């Protein structure tokens, strides 16, 4: 764990590129038993883009986000994140799974980043009040997480990240544990909140639907070791109406297109995990197997 290349903050580079990855590679362990989670990932994320990452499970999505968040060191390559202001946090993460503190109230959880940074109390109250309002949590400000539903807890996690006002928002499958109704609801809420500030977002999902619904651009990743397989632009205008969008024929086409890219990768990751003779799940589902 010694001095590997670190996430670099820089003011150079094209002004509209917020996050730049160059040959990012991550290996866990070493020698023959080590596994390569990410390999030679190179990409630019423009400022204000809602960037989606889709890939089969285990392809290194979480690893990539944790590297961006400085929670994991990369093995090779470089990352540049253009800072807007030094006194603002570089990133805030909405973690995969339950991550709000069970021992703090909704208010204390949501204000956590601001309190840790020593933002004045009056300003903290104002910002937190705003995001609690936006997420419909105002009435629950003094509740503890165990008193909330899964959807409400996820709203706290999102409010906590937005309230911290970071340069880049990192979201790791924030809705994957929710039922479909809650997921659709929260997707709509997220887009409304995001529309206020249009921060740069890196959003991970394993749902193609979610990627097309939320994103400006989608990166489809390969099965492990994770690489960029293809980038797809999502042409839908903003602000979006989540339900109306799903009605459009172009929406269905986009989802289908992306599935075409993803299918083989999901297949490969399934095969890597199950016994060799089994045919891939996606091959069986789409009856288009046998390349």
């Amino acid at each position, binding site marked *: 764990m010694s001095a590997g290349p670190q996430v670099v903050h820089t003011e150079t580079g094209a002004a509209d590129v917020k996050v730049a990855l160059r040959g990012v590679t991550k290996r866990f362990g070493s020698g023959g038993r080590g596994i390569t989670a990410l390999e030679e990932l190179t990409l630019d994320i423009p400022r204000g883009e809602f960037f989606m990452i889709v890939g089969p499970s285990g392809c290194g999505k979480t690893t990539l986000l944790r590297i961006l968040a400085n929670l994991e060191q990369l093995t090779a390559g470089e990352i540049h994140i253009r800072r807007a202001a030094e006194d603002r946090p570089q990133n805030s993460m909405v973690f995969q799974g339950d*991550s709000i503190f069970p021992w*703090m109230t909704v208010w204390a959880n949501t204000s*956590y980043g601001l309190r840790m940074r020593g933002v004045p109390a009056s300003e903290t109250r104002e910002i937190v009040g705003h995001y609690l309002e936006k997420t419909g949590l105002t009435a629950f400000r003094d509740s503890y997480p*165990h008193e909330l539903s899964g959807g409400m807890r996820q709203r706290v996690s999102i409010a906590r990240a937005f309230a*911290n006002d970071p340069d880049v928002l990192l979201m790791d499958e924030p809705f994957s544990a929710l039922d479909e109704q809650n997921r659709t609801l929260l997707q709509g809420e997220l887009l409304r909140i995001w529309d206020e500030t249009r921060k740069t977002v890196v959003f991970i999902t394993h749902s193609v639907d979610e990627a097309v619904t939320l994103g400006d651009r989608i990166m489809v990743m390969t099965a492990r070791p994770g690489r960029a397989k293809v980038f797809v632009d999502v042409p839908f205008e903003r602000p979006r109406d989540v339900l109306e969008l799903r009605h459009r024929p172009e929406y269905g086409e986009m989802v289908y297109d992306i599935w075409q890219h993803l299918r083989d990768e999901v297949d490969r990751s399934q095969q890597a995990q199950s016994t060799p003779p089994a045919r891939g799940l996606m091959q069986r589902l789409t009856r288009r197997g046998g390349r």
Partner: protein
Amino acid sequence: MSATDAVAKDDLSPDRQAAAPKRRRGLGRGGRDLALTVLSPIALLLVWEALVRGGILDARFFPEPSSIIGQMWMMMDSGELWTHIGASMQRLFLGFWLGLVPGLALGIVMGLSRPLRAALGPLVSGTYPIPKSALLPLILLIFGLGEMSKIVMVAIGVFYPVVLNTMAGVMQIQPIYYDVAKNFGARRWRVFRTVALPGAMPSIMTGVELGTGLGLILIAIAEMVGAKDGLGFMIWNAWELYSVETMYVGLLVIAVIGYGLSVLISGISRLVMPWRADR
């Protein structure tokens, strides 16, 4: 995530499930339980009294409850009992803090730091199984017959459960909470204050409760040797004077103190852990 674990456990208990939807019934049952709790010891005392008066129980070993109460009344009136209670409580109080503070500090750093755990773990868990009462002669040798030896005995009793439970409590905190703290810019002290301490709190309070119980046992034992006051001395002295009633008064008072302390500690637990579901 022991907080949520405990919540889950509570939710599973049939009592709670039944009580939650129908509050009135729960209260009625609580009332009945309370009545039973109060009535059953009274019934026991009445039977005891009757057995002694009927000559079935030997009054030399089991004096009638009425004479024990009478003796207690006398000792309260003369102030003697209060002196002993005061002396024991003071030693218990001082020993409690003397054991708690290092136990808490050491438990937390051992929970957080792998090297420290490797270095100190064997020492702590190796000395833990020694019966603490067996240390009394050594403690008397080192600290003399005065107050300090008694306070140290209590401290030893409090220290072990606190240090071991605190360490276990810190270690079972989900790593994701440390990631959150780091991601949201918490520095060392803040990580400790906002993650390690509250995350380990349920376990810490268990340690405090066990430690206090052990402290009470040890103070009674310690006061039997070379003390001039305290409940342990009172009981020992009663043996020498052959005042069986006084012995029983001492036992009764210690039982009441033990019960009072456990009520106090669960009250404090609720106060410092308002996020726990129980209440």
